[in-house]
């Protein structure tokens, strides 16, 4: 009995010591939830790589990056968020990769009073009409910002009628909604809308119907390499109008799969993808270089999705010094201070200049988009 008791005492002492030491100067714990497996893995993997590049100290404070994979699954993302808050006592959550998972995590973060920076696209995540989103920020450009760029380009090219083919999911529907809003304002008519699935083995039916409507231009609302399927079919069916894609396809794998059928396609992208082609006066040329050179040195070709994780770090790096004045990491005072500081951020990241305000928790403007054309398997900025 005696040895057991003394062992217990020893354990208690060690526990007390380990608790007491960080209380004096606690680490900052950042919980990261991302989709490194499952359907969104092509987005989540570069984000995960980017987290590995991040420094382990901000403003002289040690930072622990605790990364969990949600498998592109909404339920798992919520479980991960709860686990990070309850077990790891995180001060801030970065994630998740995709919109449905991020939307579901809002309740968890807001309830616990933990600030959250999403890396998903939908504007709904930071919708100011929802009181819970006080705690939520996001780094990717809103779809509306990108849709306006596409419509402006269509107008400049004299397009009067548009056909749309997109994913039969939240991404495709979201883009269709934004296009309907934006084209209405510009006086362009949407003459045909079609849906397809990421794993479809053929889109012949949809494409035949689109081509039969004879639109001046066609927008493909898809993310990643599946965006190539309708594009190749359109070319095979001899469609001669302009083809637009969304920024969701801006990765090297799309170029590889679409091959020469991609030539001439127009799409809006975050500036980091083509930072070399930006004028020297653009501040994003430097910030884009900072990120891309670090990433490419270790992981190969750049991905814009990794940039969203990098930008989450930029937001934190500017906000944490102010938050440290409000309280110790690990306390509610620090988390509230961090939230308040994030709302005042004004920082240039890889994708654009973030100017946060209580009414705008994304903070990106037109500087966060560039129209590019695919030419010989490369992204070329449209002047």
């Amino acid at each position: 009995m005696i040895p057991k008791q003394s062992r217990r005492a020893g354990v208690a002492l060690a526990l007390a010591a380990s608790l007491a030491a960080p209380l004096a100067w606690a680490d900052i714990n950042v919980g990261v939830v991302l989709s490194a497996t499952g359907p969104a893995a092509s987005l989540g993997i570069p984000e995960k790589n980017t987290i590995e590049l991040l420094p382990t100290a901000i403003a002289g404070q040690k930072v622990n990056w605790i990364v969990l994979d949600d498998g592109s699954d909404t339920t798992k993302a919520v479980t991960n968020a709860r686990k990070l808050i309850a077990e790891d006592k995180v001060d801030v959550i970065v994630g998740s990769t995709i919109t449905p998972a991020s939307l579901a995590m809002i309740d968890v973060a807001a309830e616990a009073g933990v600030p959250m920076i999403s890396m998903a696209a939908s504007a709904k995540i930071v919708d100011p009409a929802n009181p819970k989103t006080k705690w939520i920020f996001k780094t990717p450009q809103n779809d509306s910002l990108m849709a306006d760029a596409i419509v402006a380009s269509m107008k400049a090219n004299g397009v009067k009628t548009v056909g749309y083919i997109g994913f039969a999911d939240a991404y495709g529907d979201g883009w269709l909604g934004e296009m309907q809003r934006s084209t209405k304002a510009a006086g362009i008519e949407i003459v045909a809308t079609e849906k397809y699935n990421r794993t479809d083995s053929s889109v012949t039916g949809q494409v035949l119907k689109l081509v039969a409507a004879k639109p001046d231009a066609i927008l493909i609302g898809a993310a990643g390499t599946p965006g190539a399927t309708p594009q190749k079919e359109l070319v095979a069916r001899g469609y001669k109008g302009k083809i637009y894609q969304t920024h969701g396809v801006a990765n090297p794998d799309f170029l590889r799969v679409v091959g020469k059928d991609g030539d001439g396609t127009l799409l809006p992208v975050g500036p980091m993808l083509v930072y070399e082609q930006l004028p020297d006066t653009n501040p994003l040329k430097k910030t884009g270089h900072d990120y891309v050179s670090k990433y490419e040195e270790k992981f190969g070709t750049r991905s814009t999705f990794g940039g969203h994780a990098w930008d989450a770090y930029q937001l934190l790096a500017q906000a944490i010094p102010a938050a440290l004045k409000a309280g110790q990491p690990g306390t509610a005072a620090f988390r509230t201070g961090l939230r308040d500081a994030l709302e005042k951020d004004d920082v240039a990241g890889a994708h654009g200049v973030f100017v946060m305000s209580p009414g705008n928790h994304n903070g990106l403007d037109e500087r966060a988009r560039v129209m590019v054309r695919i030419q010989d398997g490369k992204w070329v900025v449209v002047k």
Partner: protein
Amino acid sequence: MDAQIAALLAQDGFTNGAIYALLALALVLVFAVTRVIFVPSGELVSYGTLTLAALDAGKTPGMVKLLVGAAVLATVIEVVSTLRRREARRLLPRVLLWGGVPLAIAALVTWAAPLKPPLFAQVLLTLAAVGALGPLLYRIVYQPIADASVLVLLIVSVALHLVLAGLGLYFFGAEGSRTPAFASAQLAVGSMTFSAQSLFVVATSALAIVVLYVLFNRTLYGKALRATAVNRIGARLVGIAPDFAGTVTFTLAALLCAFCGVLIGPITTVYYDSGFLISLKGFVGAIIGGLVSYPLAAAGALFVGLIEAFASFYASAFKEVIVFTLIIPVLLWRSLTSHHHEEDE
């Protein structure tokens, strides 16, 4: 819709239907002989396409690691069971069969990959590499539980499907690939155009079906498999080893799946996880055939392909819903018309 669009849709439907038909045949074959619902067939389709794509890019396909791992595991299992049965003199041939052959294929693929052999040789390498997985998976996963109930076998199949899908992500990455077309010409017949690729797919699928037919009706091995499918115990009594039948069946099924992957690669972008949906459509075809009839299964799969093509034209948002709703009236019809017999377990 005019006649030309209808013809194009029908052509598209037949092309995909032919691929689903091959898968339906593989599923019926495996179920008939071993009572396994072969859920992982979809993964083998993806592996087929992605292995060919890797070879085409001059890279060693990641699944070679799985081949090596599975070969080592199967050899260990064989050695242990052989020694337990005190059949030491059979040890060497078994080690050569279970370890030597797959490892030789793995070595050949690894050696040939950077040399960028012609497309035809790449296809043969792909078929050998993915086809070799079939018997190995059977030896490791299914043979030890060959007498379990259909439900247990199904659950194991689902587990194997998840394992192979996860490994697929690890081996091939999250992004999809396409393989080069076997034929890019367009043939004009009157006002209709046929793509040579579609004709190639339909012709090779038909050829594969004929080969299977000959195999099952004209050869001793084929007849042995059919005998096992009709009556397992009876087949055993006349000297057909069920393990042997299972091994041959899984080899054939894996080859068929890999071949589907090779055929579908030039038509669409294939991801590590897209095989599942493709095999589900083959499964709908197989269900139409009641999981026993080869001609009905093939016809059902062609029907699924056609429905899919026309559904994608008329109501693209509901395409999958339409295809999979199809299974309900078929199941109703089958359960009303066919005699229900309890499985003896």
